[in-house]
Structures are given as C-alpha cells and as structure tokens.
C-alpha cells in the first residue's frame, strides 16, 4: 500500500516536472517573440576598448539572431546607474526606465537588491543556465545571495602585472610588496579608492593582514571595525611613505596604472582580469616582457553579473541578450585573449575544445588560489575610512 502511494507520488511529481519543462519552453518562446524588435540599453563600464568591442560583437550577433538592437551605454561607474534608477523610482517612473540591462556586482547589486530596484527572479530560468558551472560562486555576490536577480557573465581574479626587464622576481605577499616598495621608492601605488580596483586592493590586503579573515564574510560590525582594520591602516601608513608621490596622489584607475607601468613610472600594476596583460601586449600598450603574478596565499576573485532594473522597458530583450551572453559560443569568444580574455562561468566541458587556452607567462599562473570576497558591506566601510584617512 505504502509502496503504491510512493509510486503515485513519483508519478505526480514526474508529470508535473515534465509539465514545468514544457511550460518553461513555451514561456521562453514567448519571451523570445516579445524581444523581437526591442532596443536593449546595456549599461556597462566603457573604459576598456577590448570589452567595448566584445559587446559590439555580441550586439551584432543579437541583431542577426534575435532581431534585438543592443546599445551599450558606456558608463564610468555602475554606481551612477544605480543612482539613475533610484532617481527614476523617486520620480515615479515605474515603466519605460532608461536602463534595460546593467553590468554589476558587489555593493551596487546589494544596493539595487535592497532598494527593490531589480526585476526578477529570471536568471535561473534562462535556457543557458544549465551550462553554468554552479561550483563557481555564481549564486553569491560578495556574500549576498543573488536569488536569480542577476545572471553570471564572467569571473575575475585580482592579478598583478610587472615587466620582466625591470622586475626579475615579483613580491608574492603583502610583506614582500612593502619590502619591494622600500627598495624602489616612488614606484608602487594602487588605484584610488573608491574606484573598483582600489577598493579590491584594500580588501586583498585586509584579507591577508587580518587576524580573523572569517569575520570578513559577515556584515561589518561597527564596534569591531577599528580593531579589525588596524593592521591594514598600519600597513598602508608604511606603504604610502615610500609609494608613488608619497601616497599623496593615486592613479585614477587600473588603466592608468597600466599606462604608468608602460611608462616606467610604476613597477607594478594590477587588474581584475587574469588575461589582461596578454591582451595589452597584443595591443602594443605593454612591452612584450610584461608578466602576471599573484600572491602565494591567493588573491581575491569573484563573479560579475548582468541584472535587469524593475522599470526596464525591454525586459524580454534583456533576458534574451543575457541568455546569449551565457551561450558557449559567446563565452568562448569572450575568453579569447585576443578579444577580451575574461574567463568563462560555464562548465569546462560545455566550451568548445579549441578555447581551452594554454596558459602563458602573461596570464595569471593557475596555482594562485582564489580568495572569496568579503561581505558587500565592507566595501563602503573601507572606502569611507580610507577617504577619511588618506582622501585629503
């Protein structure tokens, strides 16, 4: 009897699942149909030429395959877009918003999610979600659960770059970097926080110098903040004394760091793309002797995402485009060093075999461990404290 019940239950479950799959398929067909002819304003950081031309390529594909027009709105900081969506919400614009898709992660995602400014959940309903490697942190964004409100796009890991002709052996820890800076006064710096790379630099060193790294995965405890971050500020005080322009000024971005590395004004640059050095060499922006390195304890890595605002005009078009971005073809093209070099979020066996690039000296060595991002609330707390201490 019991056996029968179980059987029945299985039967019901199986049939309802089958029904769900079918429903999902018709749903997706409807979405694809609605997407036709839509214009998707994709708000994405526009400071990287390789990224821009990749997006241009993806837009052309979307035009041909799905009759969607994708326009990249080149922004300098995703925070500006968050602000724009907020302003639209306050002005009562709940439809026809100016942003359809936004490239986002970390504190900006967290701000959007908190403000209920996102459409969804939609990400895990995408057909190409089945290709995604869920062992990568694609459901966690800076310790904040994504809840299907954003779809993963690529992975990143903090990577340092130096020039072999000037730096024979690279520092492999925070302490070694300080020693290196003392031997080469005025030649080490980092992008000014609150720029994305500058803040990542702070988090990297906080993770390494902190006595209790596990506390960083939880929201900031204001009572503990001072003691927890003291090692970081002590370290930076020492570093700034021997840094570029005595730590009174900082480069504005990672690209400015690369430029200064090429000029020889700095000896070490940093990036969040493990393949960046390779593509910069390809373009003639860095000398051929440039190479990538990480710290032996590991460097911070994360996943970056695309999300749809609550008031987006072309929600269907945005989903179809996001789905295309997750296709093996688009992900493999993105991972190509000659194109962008941004590592894929898909399962390795889903990617075309040809795209399994052999690592070169210019890419980050594979044996550098990936450290998880601290909780999103650390970003603002660290930026505020940094500005208070060194911002003026």
């Amino acid at each position, binding site marked *: 009897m019991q056996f029968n019940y179980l059987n029945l239950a299985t039967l019901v479950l199986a049939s309802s699942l089958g029904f769900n799959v079918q429903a999902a398929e018709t749903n997706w067909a409807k979405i694809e149909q609605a997407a036709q002819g839509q214009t998707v304003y994709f708000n994405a950081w526009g400071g990287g030429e390789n990224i821009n031309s990749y997006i241009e390529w993806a837009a052309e594909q979307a035009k041909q395959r799905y009759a969607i027009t994708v326009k990249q709105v080149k922004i300098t900081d995703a925070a500006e877009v968050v602000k724009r969506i907020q302003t639209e919400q306050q002005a009562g614009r709940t439809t026809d918003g100016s942003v359809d898709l936004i490239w986002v992660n970390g504190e900006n995602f967290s701000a959007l999610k908190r403000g209920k400014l996102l459409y969804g959940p939609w990400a895990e309903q995408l057909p190409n979600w089945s290709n995604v490697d869920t062992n990568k942190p694609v459901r966690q964004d800076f310790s904040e659960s994504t809840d299907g409100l954003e779809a993963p796009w690529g992975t990143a890991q903090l990577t340092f770059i130096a020039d072999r002709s000037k730096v024979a052996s690279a520092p492999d820890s925070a302490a070694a970097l300080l020693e290196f800076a003392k031997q080469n006064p005025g030649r080490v710096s980092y992008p000014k926080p609150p720029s994305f790379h500058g803040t990542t630099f702070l988090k990297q060193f906080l993770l390494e110098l902190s006595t209790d790294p596990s506390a960083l995965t939880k929201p900031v405890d204001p009572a503990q903040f001072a003691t927890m971050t003291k090692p970081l500020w002590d370290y930076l005080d020492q570093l700034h004394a021997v840094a570029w322009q005595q730590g009174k000024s900082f480069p504005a971005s990672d690209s400015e760091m690369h430029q200064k590395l090429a000029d020889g*004004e700095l000896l070490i640059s940093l990036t969040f793309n493990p393949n960046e050095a390779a593509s910069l060499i390809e373009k003639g922006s860095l*000398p051929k002797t440039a190479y990538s390195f990480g710290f032996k304890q590991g460097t911070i890595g994360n996943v970056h995402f695309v999300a749809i605002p609550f008031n987006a005009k072309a929600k269907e078009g945005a989903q179809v485009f996001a789905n295309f971005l997750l296709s093996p073809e688009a992900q493999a093209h993105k991972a190509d060093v000659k194109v962008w070099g941004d590592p894929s979020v898909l399962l390795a066996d889903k990617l075309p075999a040809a795209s399994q690039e052999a690592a070169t000296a210019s890419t980050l060595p594979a044996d550098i461990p990936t450290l998880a991002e601290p909780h999103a609330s650390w970003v603002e707390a660290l930026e505020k404290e940094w500005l208070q201490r060194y*911002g003026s």
Partner: protein
Amino acid sequence: MVAALRQLSSRMLTANNSAKRTPHNSLDWMLWGVAWLGVLVILGLPLLGLIPALNDGLSANNWLLLWADSQTLPALKLTLFSAGISTIWALWLACSLVFLFYPSRAWQRLQRQLPVFLALPHAAFAIGLVLLLAPSGWLVRLIAPFFAWTAPPNWITTQDPYALSLTLALVLKETWFLLWILTSLLNQEWLLKQSLVAQSLGYGRWQMGWQILFPQLLKRLAWPLLAVFAYGLSVVDMALIIGPSTPPTLAVLAWQWFTDPDPSQQLKAQSLALLLIGLLLMGAALGYLAYLVLSKRLATPTGHRHKLRTYPVLKLALSSLLSLPVWLALFLLLLWSLAGSWFFPQIIPDDFSLNAWHRAAFEPFSTTIFIASCCVFIALPLTLLWLEWGSKQQAWLYLSLIIPALPFTAAQYQVALLLNFDGNLAAVIWSHLAWVLPYMLLTLAGAYRNFDERFVLTAKTLTYSHWQACIYIKWPMLIRPILAACAVGFAVSVAQYLPTLFIGGGRIETVTTEAVSLSAGGNRASLAVQAVLQALLPLLAFVLATSLSQWLGRNHQGLK
C-alpha cells in the same frame, strides 16, 4: 546744417529706440512672443529645477554633513585657489598683451591665432597639456637623454595635489577668452581717443594701459570676469583630467556625490552645489571691492611718467607662454593619435600606425556635429529675434554663464526627469542651448549695439516694415558678426560635458564625453584620436565662418 541733421536724426533714433520695444502690429507681437517663449523654455525652465535643490541644499543637517567630510575643506581651498588665481592671472595676462601689443603687427599675429585658441575645447587642451607636462610627458622625454633616465623622474607635475597644473591650464585657456572679449572692446572710439591723448601727454603704452585704460576696461569686463571665475569654480572635465585627485576640487567632489547611490552623499552634493553659488557671490563681492579700491587709487595719478621702454623680454615671454603650449599640445595629440607603441623615454613613437584611427568610434563625432548644428540653427533665430524684439534687460540671460555649471545642470536634469524628457538627442540639444544661446547673444550684442540704426530708419521711411528692414537690410549687414556668433555657438556646444552626461543619461556620446572617459587611463592613442576630433570640430566651424565672411566681404565692401 550737417550737425543739425545729425542731431535731429539722433533724436528720432532715441524716439524710435524707445518705441521699438513695444511691438505695435500683430507680426511684431508674434515675434516678441517667439523670442520670449524660446528664452523661457531654454533658460527659465531649468530655474524651476533649482527649487527642490534649494530645499534640500539649505537644510542645516546637510551642511553639517558637508562640513564633517574630511575632503570638503581641502577641496574648498584647492577650488578657491585654482579659480581665484586663474581669474586674476588671466586678467593680468590678457590686459598685458593688449597694452604691450595693440595695435602692432605682433597683435595681428596673435589675433590670427585667437580663433584656434578659443575653439580648442578645454578637455582636449588639458589632455594635450598632460601629454606635454606629465612626468612621462614630452618635455621630460626631451631632457631624459641628458640625465640618462630610463624611467620618468619621481616628480609631481600634472594632477599635482596643489592644483597648480589645473590653475595653469585654466589661466591659459581663460586668457584667450578675455582677450577675445577685449578685442571687441578695443574697436571702440573712446579707447583710441584716450590713448592718443595719453600718449601725446608723454605716457608710455604700458603705463597708460594700466593707469588709464585698465580701470575703464575693468568696468566692462565685470561680467566676463565673473563668468571666468564661475567656470573655474565648476569645471569638471578639465579638473578630472589635469586637476588634483586626493582630494579633487569641489566641482568634481559634487559630481561624484551627485552620482553616488548613497542618499546622504547626494544631500551633501546639493549643499555643495549651493556652496559653489555662494563662493561665486563672495568672489563677485570681493572683486567689486577690489575694483572700488583700485579705481579710487588710480583716480588721482601722481603724474609721474615712467621711462618709455619697449619690454622686449616681457613681450617674448608672454606671447610664447600663451601660444607655445597650445601648439605643442595640439602637436602631441596628433603625434599620439598616430603612435603604434611609444614607451618612455622615446621622443618620437617607436612605430607609427593608423590603428587608433581605424579602431576609433566615429559615432560620437557625427553625434557631436548633429547636436552642435541643431543648437546653432535654433539659437541663431532666437538670438536675432531677442536682440530685435526681446527685452532690453538682458543680464538675466547670462545667468547660465554665471551660475556654476553643476547646480544648473542638476536643475536641468530634475526638470527633464519630471517631464519624462531625458536620455535623447532633443533633450541634450535643449540642455546645450542654455549655454549656446547666451554665448551667441554675448557675441552678437556688441555688434548689434554698434549698428547704425539710421539704416533701419531710412528703410522704414521707404515703406519697409520693421521685419522687412531686418531681413533685407540689418541682418545682411551684420552677416560677419552673425557668422562669428554661429561658430562660437557651435564650439560651445561641442565642449559641453556635464549636461551631455546628465541629461543624455550617458546614452548620448559626444567626442567630449568620449575623450574625458578615455582620459582616465585607456589607450593613449585612442584618447588622442578623440581629443583631436574634439579639437577639430570647433576649428572647422571657425574656419568656415571666417572664410564665408571673407568671401562675402569681397563682394560687399561695406560689411562690418
């Protein structure tokens, strides 16, 4: 007889002038209406957007927040320093040039270069200066072989924490602006007469300039000087490129806070925008005070004549200080745009290539041309209608030149959002017009004032209506200043950064937004391409305007 006639006609002229402002037939009423409507939509509407800003900006709590931020005070010092010093220096330089050179052959040479200097957008110029002056810049590369440098020296030049490089860039750029204003003042008769008298009394040019002409010019330069000061207070693009970063100037800080998702930062930005207006008023008051003191001191000259000197060193120094950096900056922009790879300490690129030009996005270029042309096509008729039929009280039209750009743009943005009118080309054109229209008015007003109204009067006695007199007689006679105003309007639109970004919602890309966003790193060759394009556009407009007016002048000798 002649004198009597002249008196009569001038009396009629005054009668006519007072009548002119009250339209008397339906066509006049309509034109009056169009002029007012246009001006109100362009300049009045944004003022409504200032109201919510005032509301938030005045709250005591926000001021406390602003004061508590550790960046505010140092940024305030930097802003006051760069805006104040650059205004004073630009005034001194522009006047010195006039007193040293006017009217000589060297003056003519300067005059010929003036359109290039004026047309060169602030952003492109700043980028060129960075390529010239940075520790890895061209000047250092020139001397590097003598010191066997293989890496740039550990110097602080551009983006220095004291805002010196920003101040220098502002001084150079604003001097040309003042020189341009001075040029239009110099043609006036009183000046020539007074300098003749003064010279016959044994005053040298330099002494006469500073003691007799300067106080009088100063009075007429009051508004342009205020505009220069306001520009220095609120400039964002130049400050991002060549200004300090830790902390930046107030305008950049306000811009960063305005775009911050944290609401408390946005409240600080509102107060900061008001602070900028406050600083402007303070600067105006101080300037007026200084003017009073100065004119009192100069009112009773000692009568002592300085030795007549020709100041050859000063002349050479000033004229080269003013023109060399521009030409070098332009040259470097061109060179970088053609560079394949170019590493320190090479003086010329390791290899040349057209890659950057092939890669370059030309869409911003065509968008910029479209926006600027639309602006001129809308602003020109409005300008003419306003000068002819609008109110004589024009001071408030220059409000957008005087109010720092940041609060004004934020107000425009508020209005655009409320009207659901942001993120498209029409909105950007509307926002640009708030600067294009006043500048065109400013450019034309002088020539318009000096126009001999007797021509119109004669036309009217010969049965032309007021409108016909303008169409057939007055405006064709003013074609040269009109063309110049068009070129100015075009250049002003090309250079706009903040309104394009705010009202365009980031969707509308012009060469200016492209150049500024690339200046924060990126590939220098691509940056140089966009900067060259940005510099090229206004230059083309000026060349077009000049050659057109020369061509017209060949056939019509009497044109002004």
